[in-house]
């Protein structure tokens, strides 16, 4: 469409490396002429548009470092995308993704991945997802995860893990391997217990964040929560808790029901 022509001409003329097209009603990237030829681009912001697909040619933008697609209508992503060699920050928040393409975990230098407010669950992650070892921040709030694959422990550089308002029933013990983790958000899930291995991590210092409200915690954990997060960590490190946790897992009691009502999520619209 010619309405972006002047903007693009300016960008090309000045050899600009940053493109920002926010809330322009863009439905398809073909509306933005020649965008896929602008190899010099390091930053593209397309927030608050109506994109439902991305062209495979997006992978040609080999200098792209930051790609922001917040609040679009994306339902799927091109497989080629994960080859972007310099992409460090990818924001796909508030879209309609129900799955990630095969090979999505191949980004060589991806550091921050924001998938907040989509329709993802543990089954929709590709096999190589947890190969993203360069990942510093993983934002999965407002999705449909009922569990996390144990491979999460491979994300050695993860500092921030956000799982607010999913349907998590349990956390894998491998979460205790994320030694660099300094933020863990798990509020609004169906968690009753925490793996004792979580006690390996220091998440209650002044530089750390642990958010665990609105979960159906077993009474001992709920009691500790009343006093403070640091008491929860002291408790889950105790032998008493390890015993209780073992019995709880062995009992195999049915998970609490799903309480989050997601019917009104706009990500559900197709």
């Amino acid at each position, binding site marked *: 469409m010619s309405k972006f022509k002047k903007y693009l001409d300016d960008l090309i003329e000045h050899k600009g490396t940053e493109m920002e097209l926010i809330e322009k009603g863009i439905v398809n990237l073909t509306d933005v002429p020649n965008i896929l030829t602008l190899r010099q681009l390091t930053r593209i912001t397309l927030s*608050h548009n109506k994109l439902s697909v991305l062209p495979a040619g997006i992978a040609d933008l080999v200098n792209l470092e*930051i790609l922001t697609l917040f*609040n679009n209508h994306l339902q799927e992503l091109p497989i080629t995308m994960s080859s972007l060699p310099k992409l460090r920050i990818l*924001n796909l*928040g508030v879209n309609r993704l129900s799955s990630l393409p095969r090979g999505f975990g191949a980004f060589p230098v991806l550091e921050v991945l*924001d998938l907040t*407010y989509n329709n993802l669950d543990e089954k929709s992650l590709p096999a190589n997802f947890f190969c993203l070892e360069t990942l510093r921040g993983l934002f999965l709030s407002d999705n449909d995860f009922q569990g996390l694959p144990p491979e999460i422990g491979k994300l050695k550089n993860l500092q921030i893990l956000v799982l607010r308002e999913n349907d998590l029933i349990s956390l894998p013990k491998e979460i205790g391997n994320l030694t660099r983790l300094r933020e863990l*958000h798990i509020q609004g899930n169906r968690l009753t217990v925490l793996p004792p291995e979580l006690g390996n991590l220091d998440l209650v210092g002044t530089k750390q964040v642990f958010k665990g*409200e609105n979960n159906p915690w077993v009474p001992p954990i709920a009691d500790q929560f009343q006093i403070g997060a640091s008491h929860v960590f002291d408790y889950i490190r105790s032998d008493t808790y390890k015993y209780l946790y073992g019995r709880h897992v062995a009992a195999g009691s049915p998970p609490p029901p799903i309480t989050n009502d997601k019917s009104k999520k706009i990500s559900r619209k197709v």
Partner: protein
Amino acid sequence: MSSNYRHGEGEWSMYSSHTVSPPIIRLGSVSAQRNNPLLQRRLQQHNGLEAGGHPMVTPETDQQTDSGNMVLGGNACARCGQGFRKDEEMVNSSGQVWHVHCFVCAQCFQTFPEGIFYEFDGRKYCEHDFNVLFAPCCNKCGEFIIGRVIKAMHASWHPNCFLCELCTAPLAESGFIKNAGRALCHECNAKEKARGINKYICHKCHSLIEEGHIKYRGEPYHPYHFNCTSCGVELTVEAREKTGELYCLRCHDKMGIPICGACRRPVEDRVVHALGKAWHPEHFVCSKCEKPFLGSRHYEKRGLAYCETHYHQLFGNICYVCNSIIVGDVFSALNKSWCVDHFTCSCCDRKMNQKTKFFEVDLKPVCKGCYERFPGELKKRLKKAYDQTQKK
């Protein structure tokens, strides 16, 4: 180096190459003056008196009268100042006269044995007292030296007493060489030198140090001449000098020598002082990567030192966006830090500054414009959760 000190007729003489100014010592001897006819006659008178009691009037007494004790021609005894009786014997020596009983040693007041006296500074001494008072003593045998004196090695010697300390060859004629405080003949000195190449001579006992010397105030010594200043043990080659005192290695290591904070061994050469400890430069390392700082900047935190990279990595001030150390001003919010230029809305990536109002969603900054475009039901949930935490 040596001087002759001749005992002869007439004057003592001193031939010296030394700077000592020679005292003027004059030897007088009655017998030595027998060539003088006048004195000879006087001696005869003297002797005659003792022998036969026939005194003779000497020519000098010509002016004496028979009037007894009168002073003859102004002649008075050089010692007591009294005159002479008419026929009294007198002693005449170098232009002065004495009563016989006044012509005595200035030290012992005895007559001179065999008439031999020594004169010094206008006074006359018998041989014994002169030697006692003025003659040099041999440094070897301790006897007085009459005649030739060898002055060497800051002492005096009889020519026959000044010998090579190693082979006892006489040195008076051949000369000597000073070797480590010893007087040696040329031959022995050459041998010593050959033996002592690359070896030290002990500054205390002056013998060769066969193996293992210690240096004290710049001079080599056998270690066993010393004891540790601290514990008193006899020293070995491992002894160390500190502030002008000698210590055994054990005591030295315990005293004020910095101990490396890493390897716990003493730091003898270059020392780094940091974190209240001393370190070998190569042992002062980043607590994270263990690379030595070697003079580059280090950062301290909770008693540990870090290189710049790891300090920032561990203790913040790494930009959330560029993941690099923040140079210059830092935006700190939501448990994160940003470079001033990298502080953007997490949803639209638009730059924000310290005046921009923003919302917090999952501890990410969201500008007002983006937050307003959030799905309504999400905003409701976020608000509910926010109110819940505020109630607490």
